[in-house]
């Protein structure tokens, strides 16, 4: 029903969606998930034809979006917006009546008898009939959200787009509206595309989920069971989660792992080898666990250097874009002598940072434990020298850890 071919878009210099291709069938219930700023709302506006794509084309029933008039489009799809600024005190029923605009025949009014029936129905199912005569400016955020929902329902379109439409609602109304969505979808065959932040609700209610990463690229577009995996969610949201099965619904359920903050390292002196962003989140986690962190050598302006400096860690600095100098190496050696534990989180290896591994080997020999965070040979630009040294470290007793959470736990156990 909606076919997207080769879609790209950009806001100024910011490129979103490089060449998306997907199809939405009639009668589907789809959730779009992704981190803030990944372009979920923009994607809806593109699908709706409110924004022209930079490349590619969007087809509704095989007809290009550009050829469909605004009026015709508004009969096909209704949109429940995120939340709007309301400045004018329209009565609730007048506002819902605006949903009849695409169907109106008279110049001066929104509603004939058939329209009034649709309006009343929308008011009833969203539970705001009692508010019908109240000015919308006096409503709470949740009530207003239901008015916006009712307006979209009054539009009686075959497709419904929701942009975080349940985000301001109490749990009872959130569930109620979710049930309403499912009913609309099953009984009336309304195609629903919703943007959601509630992963569990999306998993429980959607037929398919589109998961986007921060650049608006599709990580996956499939059933909730296939999409809601720890690996996918790590790629999309950069969080570590476990997935359980909801005992009542059988839907996948996301359990965020927040325990790193609970682990206390109480001043444990940890030295971290990192760079190029490989240590950013680990620095934050160690800081939250109250470890005394030192890091380096780090080139000034490196994103890890900025985080470490901001967190008041002891940083061994190096001039930007330079291989590590003798002086930096000897300062680091001094820092390692003080440390209780050493972590190697570096991903990219080159001639410049290769001496770090020798430093780690020395420290290991002197009895300081060394942890290797998820070592790989893929980013080794030293013709294998770094990988050899890493393996040698491992044989000498360095511990390999798979992820940051595991690392922090191991550090806590000593």
């Amino acid at each position, binding site marked *: 029903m909606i076919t997207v071919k080769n879609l790209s878009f950009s806001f100024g210099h910011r490129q979103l969606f490089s060449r998306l291709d997907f199809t939405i069938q009639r009668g589907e219930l789809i959730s779009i998930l992704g981190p803030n700023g990944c372009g979920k709302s923009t994607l809806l*506006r593109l699908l*709706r034809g*409110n924004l022209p794509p930079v490349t590619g084309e969007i087809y509704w029933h095989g007809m290009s979006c550009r050829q469909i008039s*605004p*009026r*015709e*489009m*508004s*009969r096909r799809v*209704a*949109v429940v*917006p995120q939340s*709007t*600024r*309301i*400045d*004018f*005190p*329209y*009565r609730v029923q*007048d*506002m819902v009546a*605006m*949903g009849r*605009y*695409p169907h*109106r025949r008279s*110049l*001066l*009014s*929104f509603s004939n008898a058939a329209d009034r029936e649709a309006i009343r129905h929308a008011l009833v199912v969203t539970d705001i009939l009692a508010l019908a005569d109240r*000015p919308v*400016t006096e409503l709470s955020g949740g009530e207003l959200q239901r008015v916006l929902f009712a307006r979209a329902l009054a*539009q009686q379109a075959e497709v419904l787009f929701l942009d975080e439409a349940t985000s301001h609602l109490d749990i009872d109304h959130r569930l109620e509206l979710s049930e309403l969505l499912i009913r609309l979808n099953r009984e009336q065959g309304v195609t629903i595309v919703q943007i959601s932040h509630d992963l569990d609700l999306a998993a429980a209610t959607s037929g398919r989920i589109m998961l986007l990463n921060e650049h608006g690229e599709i990580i996956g577009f499939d059933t909730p069971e296939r999409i809601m995996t720890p690996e996918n969610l790590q790629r999309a949201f950069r969080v570590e989660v476990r997935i359980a099965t909801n005992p009542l619904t059988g839907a996948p359920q996301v359990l965020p792992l927040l325990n790193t903050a609970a682990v206390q390292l109480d001043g444990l002196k940890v030295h971290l080898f990192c760079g190029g962003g490989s240590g950013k989140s680990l620095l934050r986690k160690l800081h939250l666990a109250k470890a005394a962190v030192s890091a380096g050598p780090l080139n000034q302006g490196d994103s890890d250097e900025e985080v470490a400096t901001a967190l008041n860690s002891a940083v061994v600095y190096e001039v930007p874009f330079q291989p590590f100098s003798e002086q930096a190496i000897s300062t680091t050696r001094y820092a390692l002598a003080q440390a209780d534990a050493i972590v190697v989180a570096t991903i990219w290896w080159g001639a410049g940072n290769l001496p770090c591994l020798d430093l780690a080997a020395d420290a290991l020999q002197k009895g300081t434990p060394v942890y290797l965070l998820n070592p790989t040979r893929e980013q080794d630009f030293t013709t294998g020298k770094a990988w050899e040294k890493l393996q040698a470290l491992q044989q000498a007793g360095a511990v390999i850890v798979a992820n940051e959470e595991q690392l922090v736990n191991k550090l806590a156990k000593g």
Partner: protein
Amino acid sequence: MRRPIDRTGLLWILGLLLVPLGAITISLRAGSMDMSWAQLFHLLQQGPGSSVGQAVLWKIRIPRTLLAGLVGAALSLSGVTFQAVLRNPLADPYLLGVSGGAALGAVAALTIGINSAPLVSLAAFGGALTALAIVYLVARAHTCSSHTLILSGVMVGSVAAALLLFLLWRAPTEATRQAIFWLAGNLSLADPGWLGWGWGWVLVCFILLWSQAVNLDLLTQGEETAADLGLAVGRTRLILFALAGALTACAVALAGLVGFVGLVVPHICRLLWGPAHRLLLPLAALFGACFLMVADAIARSLYAPAEMPVGVVTALLGAPFFLLLLRRRGGL
């Protein structure tokens, strides 16, 4: 909120008949020549003629009343439109550089020695429309959002104000004095011959505007929502700006820069009858006309035979009334 037919409908209809009648009578009686109710009624029955009373009523007062009504209605309609389209409660008919352009046109005409009222009006009219066109073209180069429109309006207005100051500085004293009269808003300047044209213009604009009432409602919901509901936003907004600009230009050309009416009458009407434009537009036109007729009557009678600038009265009358309503209803 409230509709005249819903609640004690008869009272509202009675009010809507009596208020204009009252305003017209007050306006007709005001002036340096006293006129009792009986005299007024008698003269109205007699029709135009050669007696002093007839001449005063039919040649001076009735045109004056009609002019006040026209200007009041035009400014209110334009204020309603600008506030809705820009979604800004502080918007008024002069926001988008219209006043600056009109003033510049009129003062330019005055300083080069043109003294006849019709030509000055025409110059003001041209200036207003030119300013509006520039603002629109500048804003269209970008997204034409309400922020860009307001900002470019303010900028065009500033340039016009600077040129205006320059002209006033260069101008002979007599022209400066006239220009100040005109800038303060003055209902005595217009040529009665233009009245028919003015009313025709306002009536046409009103009918066109009223046909857009539902579109105005949609635009108050924001550009995106209006588009989601199927409105061709760009085109509609252009039509509405053109209509509001045409109304303002007409008012300014005939009476100079009468302040406050276009800002406060829409708010008062919205507080009384709610924001739905199907009802708001005609009522604002009616109420704005009455408001300016009464304000003008007061301006003429307080220091008769001298005449106060009507802008003084509109502000002194409108602001307290507005604040009172605001206090009673609590919020816009």
